């Protein structure tokens, strides 16, 4: 009897972690679990979920910190059996304020009052667009490298991209890209697989320049990710058991593994 209850409690916890894996740090475009930000995700006897997280520095921007906390709460709330979710940020300049706002279910503007002049939609969109660009250029570069014709790629529809036969790496990059494709809306006449940040079609003759130009977005994110991971390790004793259950590290595209 007790073992049955244990196993279902473990299942619920695993479900929570799987939901948390879908939440990304907006600047780094990597899951908060792979970044080892989440230190606790427990389910109590009343099906209330308690999440705790910390960030690489005391000074990490309030807006991103709040976004991640809010996204974690929303992601976990989607599980039908969850009664309540509490999210606590630790060791941060705005910890008290953010935790109080989260506990009362306030949004960012309500939490910060006069210190904010709006909510986080614009900020979120800015970084989703960067994620879109980064994922798109990684996929395009891979497809060109594996012999796809630029003229064909720029004409390709979303359905054709979905059906395209690609290798394993290509498949992973495609999935990641398609997760962000809807950030950019098409012009009404187009259902092209690849459009720029304004929704306009790409040109075959300038495709390599386009990919090259957006490389800086990728380089910046990769650099920041390495910095954040390093600072987190410098700040916290990472030998303390972290419950990154099922938290497989995502493989960032672009810079090769030998840099890691």
């Amino acid at each position, binding site marked *: 009897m007790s073992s049955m209850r244990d196993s279902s409690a473990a299942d619920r916890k695993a479900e929570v972690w799987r939901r948390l894996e879908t939440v990304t740090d907006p*600047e780094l475009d990597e899951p908060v679990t792979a970044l080892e930000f989440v230190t606790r995700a427990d389910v109590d006897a009343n099906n209330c979920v308690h999440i705790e997280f910390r960030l690489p520095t005391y000074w990490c921007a309030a807006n991103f910190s709040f976004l991640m906390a809010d996204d974690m709460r929303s992601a976990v709330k989607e599980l039908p059996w969850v009664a309540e979710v509490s999210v606590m940020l630790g060791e941060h300049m705005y910890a008290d304020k953010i935790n109080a706002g989260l506990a009362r279910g306030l949004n960012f503007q309500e939490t910060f009052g006069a210190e904010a002049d709006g909510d986080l939609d614009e900020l979120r969109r800015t970084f989703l667009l960067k994620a879109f660009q980064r994922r798109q250029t990684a996929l395009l570069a891979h497809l060109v490298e594996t012999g796809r014709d630029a003229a064909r790629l720029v004409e390709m529809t979303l359905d054709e991209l979905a059906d395209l036969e690609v290798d394993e790496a290509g498949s992973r990059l495609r999935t990641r890209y398609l997760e962000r494709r809807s950030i950019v809306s098409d012009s009404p006449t187009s259902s092209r697989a690849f459009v720029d940040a304004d929704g306009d079609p790409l040109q075959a003759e300038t495709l390599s320049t386009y990919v090259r130009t957006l490389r800086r977005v990728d380089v910046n*994110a990769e*650099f920041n990710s390495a910095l954040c991971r390093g600072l987190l390790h410098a700040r916290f004793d990472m030998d303390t058991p972290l419950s990154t259950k099922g938290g497989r590290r995502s493989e960032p595209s672009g810079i090769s593994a030998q840099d890691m």
Partner: protein
Amino acid sequence: MYRTANGEEIFVIDGHTHFWDGSPANQKNVHGKQFIECFYAYHSNLSPPSEKWTLDKFSKYDAKTMHDDLFVHGYDDMAILQPTYLGDFYKNGFNTTERNAAMKKSHPERFILNSAFDPRDGAKGLEALHENCEKYHPKGVKLYTAEWKGDSKGYKLTDKESYKFLEAAQKYGIKNVHVHKGPTIIPLNRDAFDVADIDDVATSFQDLNFIVEHCGLPRLDDFCWIATQETNVYGGLAVALPFIHTRPGYFAHVISELLFWIGPDKILYGSDYGIWTPKWLIDKFMAFEIPEDVTKETGSVLTLETKKKILGLNAARLYGIDIEAQKKKIEAAGGYAHLAESVHAPE
């Protein structure tokens, strides 16, 4: 002074150094403690193990330690002292112009003393800037836009008050504005690291040079984009450079992007002392080559000529340093005595 294997001398100007007091005795509150500990995390994360200091040493080092680390053990010929006040976190300030001035006084041939201002200080601040400029004749200012001041958590260069201060600074002979972005700017819902305001003032103040510290990181991508369009925007290498040890692959990508977008004439070396020390940074930098696959992508190559520009020539141009004359001054003050042996090394 760095000397290559062929005996070629490279004059080094360190674009970013601090003489701070972050010690517990000077801390006003938890933010002061967290500030120096955050710097220490950068230091301990990115320094080679042999170069790591204790938190105690890191929090407050003396003038001789700094002098020797930069100029005797390290290859710096000159260093720019960049103030960071943080009056809300530290009783006597973290790293004030006055504190730096005492350092310069004992080694005038070694240091370039920069001033600072905060547009939120209003008329009193303008007066202080004026006094500072009369007293020290600085050619540059360092601005930290995320400094906390009372209820304010920071400012933007496009604020009306910022314009007033930039106009005044220019009138008082300032040429170079070093901008350091930080995480807290009101309104908090916007991206505090956004570099768009630098773009705006660089256009408005064509006779000022804007040196964006840390190359705009964590917004290197946006920085590259604006720096390529503004002729008076430069990038300071501090924070990016130490990656050369822990993550050379990332450093290769960053430096090749910078060379691609802003070019070799607009990148400035900075150790960010005491976060990092010049000796190992420059040893690694001089030995560094951009890997072939990265060069293939960007066309960027880190030639000896480019290294010389980054390490000293670019800063010398911005600060009007006559390198040959300066070498003589340093030599006369005994600054190259420790090099004597290698100067007269066997042919």
